């Protein structure tokens, strides 16, 4: 008897506690950006909570490579957060088609973004949009300005100059010419192949032609970047085969390497670590004066869990993301994540300004493997990781790598089967 009263009391208190908490709605954000945890907690969330009393926001990131798997499992189990950070293209589209993400086409904030910005989070016909675009990342090379000054080299514009700079550093011997490893595989594809590639396949032109089946991965435009990667091997430092991504970051920020093949997302992390001056240069073109193309990849957006119990409050947050308060806060707390909003956002970080200035000189494109082409098995993105690594290590010739990717793609992708 005594026990049941005790349980009764406990239940009563927990109900009361629940009622008290219900006054404040807590929104949970799922994300893969665990590097940004502090910025969300210290800057973005307090700014939102200050103007929206009664809504609390929690940022709960998971490890980047695991994110899609973890998120899918959570959505399946009904334990995912209210707001879902969206990967571009098929992963999010799959979630939308499965009814996991809500349709946000009519959200007021959507008018702040251009069609190109929204394209990564729309249905194939562009009729529905399901995530609010947050940022794109630009690829290029970050370099150690002090090291360049020490050896008296200028930033390279063409392929020949690029390798001449690397040779200078190799002969000098004090710096590892380029900090990149192949252990984690994705850097070779993302910071290698998709970084330098757009100059060869002419950005959007080649990317769309590949999707339509008018070009093949065995064409010169798609094999040429592999040919460049094959030359990188001798500049990568001892034991690059077992060098991981964090290893490469540390080697560069400790000042032991001259050049770092980068994505602009590194800027905020590197700023706090380096004690030398950093600069950036865009991927080299074949001949001086050629048109340049850069990878300006729509990378991150925020969507609404269709099963969320607080969709009204979540939409308030999503609308807030279209305001200049959010875009300027986000772009300046995370330099290197460039706002996709149509209204220009002023940035203070010089390195971020350098990256974003390329948008006016060069044509932008997104990563070649992301839209449509990674829908089947074998998965073209994962295969590209593997092929880029094999080419850099010299285990596969550029032509063989192109042929292998083409065979894999053609095995399931109809436009490539003719």
């Amino acid at each position: 008897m005594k026990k049941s009263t005790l349980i009764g009391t406990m239940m009563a208190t927990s109900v009361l506690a629940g009622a008290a908490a219900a006054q404040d709605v807590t929104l949970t954000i799922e994300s893969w950006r665990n590097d940004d945890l502090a910025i969300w907690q210290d800057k973005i969330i307090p700014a939102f909570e200050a103007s929206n009393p009664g809504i609390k926001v929690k940022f709960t990131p998971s490890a980047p490579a695991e994110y899609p798997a973890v998120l899918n499992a959570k959505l399946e189990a009904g334990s995912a957060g209210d707001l879902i950070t969206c990967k571009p293209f098929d992963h999010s589209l799959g979630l939308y088609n499965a009814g996991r993400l809500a349709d946000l086409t009519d959200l007021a904030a959507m008018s702040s973004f251009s069609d190109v910005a929204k394209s990564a989070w729309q249905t194939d016909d562009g009729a529905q949009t399901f995530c609010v675009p947050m940022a794109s990342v630009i690829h290029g090379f970050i370099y150690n300005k002090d090291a360049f000054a020490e050896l008296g080299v200028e930033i390279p514009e063409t392929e020949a100059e690029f390798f001449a700079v690397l040779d200078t550093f190799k002969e000098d011997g004090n710096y590892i010419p380029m900090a990149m490893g192949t252990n984690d595989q994705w850097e070779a594809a993302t910071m290698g192949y998709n970084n330098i590639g757009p100059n060869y396949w002419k950005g959007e032109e080649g990317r769309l032609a590949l999707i339509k089946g008018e070009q093949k991965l065995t064409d010169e435009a798609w094999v040429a970047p592999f040919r460049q990667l094959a030359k990188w091997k001798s500049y990568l430092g001892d034991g690059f085969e077992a060098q991981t991504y964090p290893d490469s970051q540390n080697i560069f920020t400790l000042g032991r390497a001259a050049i770092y093949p980068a994505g602009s997302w590194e800027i905020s992390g590197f700023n706090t670590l380096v004690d030398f001056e950093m600069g950036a240069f865009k991927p080299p073109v074949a001949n001086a004066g050629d048109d340049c193309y850069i990878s300006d990849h729509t990378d991150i957006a925020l969507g609404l869990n269709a099963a969320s119990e607080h969709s009204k409050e979540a939409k308030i947050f999503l609308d807030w993301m279209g305001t200049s308060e959010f875009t300027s806060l986000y772009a300046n707390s995370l330099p290197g994540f460039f706002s996709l909003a149509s209204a220009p956002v002023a940035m203070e970080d010089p390195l971020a300004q350098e990256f974003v200035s390329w948008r006016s000189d060069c044509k932008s494109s997104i990563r070649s493997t992301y839209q449509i082409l990674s829908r089947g098995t074998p998965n073209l993105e994962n295969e590209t990781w593997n092929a880029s690594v094999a080419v850099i290590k010299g285990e596969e010739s550029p032509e063989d790598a192109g042929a292998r990717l083409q065979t894999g793609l053609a095995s399931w992708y109809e436009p490539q089967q003719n």
Partner: protein
Amino acid sequence: MAEKPRFRWHIVVFLAPAVLVYTAVMIYPLFNTLRLSLFTEVDQSRVFVGLQNFKTLFGDTVWSTQFWNALGNNFWFFMIHMLVQNPIGVALAAILSHPKLRFASLYRSAIFIPTILSFVIVGFAWKLILSPIWGIAPGMLDAVGLKALYAPWLGKEAYALTTLSLVSVWQFVGIPMMLIYAALLSIPDEILEAAEVEGITGLSSFWKIKLPLILPSIGIISILTFVANFNAFDLIYAAQGALAGPDFSTDILGTFMYRTFFGFQLQLGDPHMGSTIASAMFVIILIGVCLYLFGIQSRMRRYQF
């Protein structure tokens, strides 16, 4: 007067917790996985396809090359454990049970400690030790003038799997050592003394008396190693990630199953193909265990003291 035999309720009561828990966390998931492997997803709904998934797994070269690669790697992983871990375990146990050895309990604990460490710690620690950039391995080899022998092992296709197998051996050598050690201690002194009277001492007493007596334990250890190795996943995942690099050279069935089931990066998870691989793993382990039980265990001689 004989009492009517009463139904022994206490047996049911005492068995119930274990049976219920085991059913909920092991038996039900196992059968559900087997069931799931017979379905596939078409337009968001689950469709029964019979053995079609198995046909894809073994018939479609995209899948089958990955499967045979993973299975081959798994056998190599197992071979290294059988050839390195278990003989070393037996040798260590034999040395430890030597009555004149000093600090035996210190060695015993020291060798056993890695076993209780998490895979994540072991994987990460060894990755750092062997790292070409920050690791102590290149420096130590350099100090003894053998720098030329150093290679970035975890990054080379030819060495990565063997390296990880040896790391796993390092971690788990304590288990065969402990089991054999216990078996050796249970051999009665009378037998050894009787052998000594017959003139069998030292090494030959190990080969002729002790080894035959601990053979059943070695059999059990082999089968435990087999099951553990074919279910392995954690160490490879912690050290090399889900893509089991370089170039899938460390991909074993566990990582292959994980990648397929949960997806990886842009590759979406496919629970049905994942279950198919899991079912194949289950069958492989079942066959291995049956071969052992009916082929070896039943023929093994046992000695009663």
